[in-house]
């Protein structure tokens, strides 16, 4: 009795799971589903572009900082001998 009940519940759960998955796959293949996928992909492309631009701005700021950093003149003889190149 207990075993039959377990099998009944397992079968019902598998049926519900399979039907949900099949319905979603059918929706994915339909025209509204394709439109939704394209729209979501566009959102992802926009997010990717924003991330690229953020990285570019970060790198540009780094280069600017590197170029505008004040430099000091060091006479070669003022460097200790063991640190000279």
């Amino acid at each position: 009795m207990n075993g039959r009940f377990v099998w009944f519940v397992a079968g019902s759960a598998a049926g519900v799971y399979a039907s949900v998955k099949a319905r979603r796959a059918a929706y994915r293949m339909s025209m509204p589903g394709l439109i939704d996928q394209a729209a979501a992909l566009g959102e992802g492309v926009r997010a990717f572009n924003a991330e690229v631009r953020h990285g570019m701005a970060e790198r540009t700021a780094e280069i600017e900082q590197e170029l505008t950093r004040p430099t000091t003149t060091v006479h070669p003889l003022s460097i200790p001998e063991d640190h000279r190149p």
Partner: protein
Amino acid sequence: MPADMVVLVATAVLACVAVVAALVALRAARQVARHQHADAPSPAEPATPAAVAVRDPEPQQAPREVRVVEGRVIVPPSREEVVSTALSRPQVRLAVLLHGVARALRPESRDRIGALVRREYRDRRRHRLRSGRRAARAAHLAVDPTPPSAHWLGEADGRAEDRAIGA
């Protein structure tokens, strides 16, 4: 007059005009160079091939010294000009772009963008299905104003009978 002859004459006229314009421009450039040479303060200045950008340790910019070397006006570039020139070089731009792409392709960015796409698709699907159900419900109510629960409870038939009796 054949058409190829017309084209030949037009090309010859155009070439003459171009040669005259080039001669006029060359003469004007020589005149300007001679003029600047005469106005130069010290003729014994060393001829430097190009301006050299020197980093200035002071934060405030010193006034730029304009020099005329061999009839050419040489203006030392400011720090902003040096930076903008360095950033506009193709190699630097490519390196900056590659850094941005590498940042966007990091695992955390990939995961975030993938999750964003999945969430967007799920939200759109839910919204569309909900709208469809609402539209179907509205269409059904327009045809049959009795709520579905009345059919389930068996009240719809009684209401129809009442309506028939009232009519």
